């Protein structure tokens, strides 16, 4: 059910903005706050919510704490969306799974 928490967390526009800023790699709270009209403590708080929701994870790098996207949480979210995406696949799937599909006839 992680995807539900993840989606709830992303319902907030500020958190979406933070989320999108992590797309290119790990960032520190101060860096993120510097790019958004939001205070540092507020960014910190949003990151905590996103961490609990499985969207981001953090680690220490020297004296700094860096936040990055959590691949495991994203995978769950993707898996959830994919169940819709694959709707209507039955026919292709059946054809793909035929025993002689990849061999010669």
């Amino acid at each position: 059910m992680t995807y539900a928490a993840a989606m709830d967390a992303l319902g907030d526009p500020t958190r979406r903005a933070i989320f999108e800023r992590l797309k290119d790699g790990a960032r520190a709270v101060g860096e993120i706050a510097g790019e958004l009209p939001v205070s540092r403590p507020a960014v910190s708080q949003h990151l905590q919510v996103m961490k609990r929701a499985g969207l981001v994870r953090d680690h220490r790098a020297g004296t700094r704490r860096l936040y990055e996207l959590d691949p495991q949480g994203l995978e769950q979210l993707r898996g959830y969306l994919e169940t819709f995406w694959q709707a209507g696949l039955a026919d292709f799937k059946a054809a793909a799974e035929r025993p002689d599909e990849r061999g010669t006839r």
Partner: protein
Amino acid sequence: MSTRQLDTSPITKSIVVDCGVERAFDVYANRMTEWWPLRTHSIHGPEAERVVMEGRDGGELYELSAGGQKAHWATITAWQPPHRLVLAWKVNPDAPAESEVEVRFTAEAENRTRVDVEHRDWQLLGEERGAEARSSYDEGWGPVLELYRAAAGA
């Protein structure tokens, strides 16, 4: 799993795309690779590389894998650019019969075209199997046509 009521009636989907009728037809029929969700909706899955529509009556619609393997989707039974396209649809070679897909393109304005898709003849697959296939495609066509709409209007 299956519902009690066996529905084999035609599936109809209508969308409006933001382009002229010529382009609407061209993107749908000749540029399917650009919008069809090949990774999930194909026989070769992630290895599927493109969709080929042989634009003529009796032509074939098929996918090609990166390794050059071909997999049949349909035979074109009516090729009438830019207004109409009919396909004898049979993605699964084990299916007992073909179903029929008709796509009609109607100009509503210079940059607005209505596209009606009708997927029918489910009863030819047998009542139970037909109803099951119908339900699967009924779910599937919506998202697939949204991708087409985005490509056509781009």
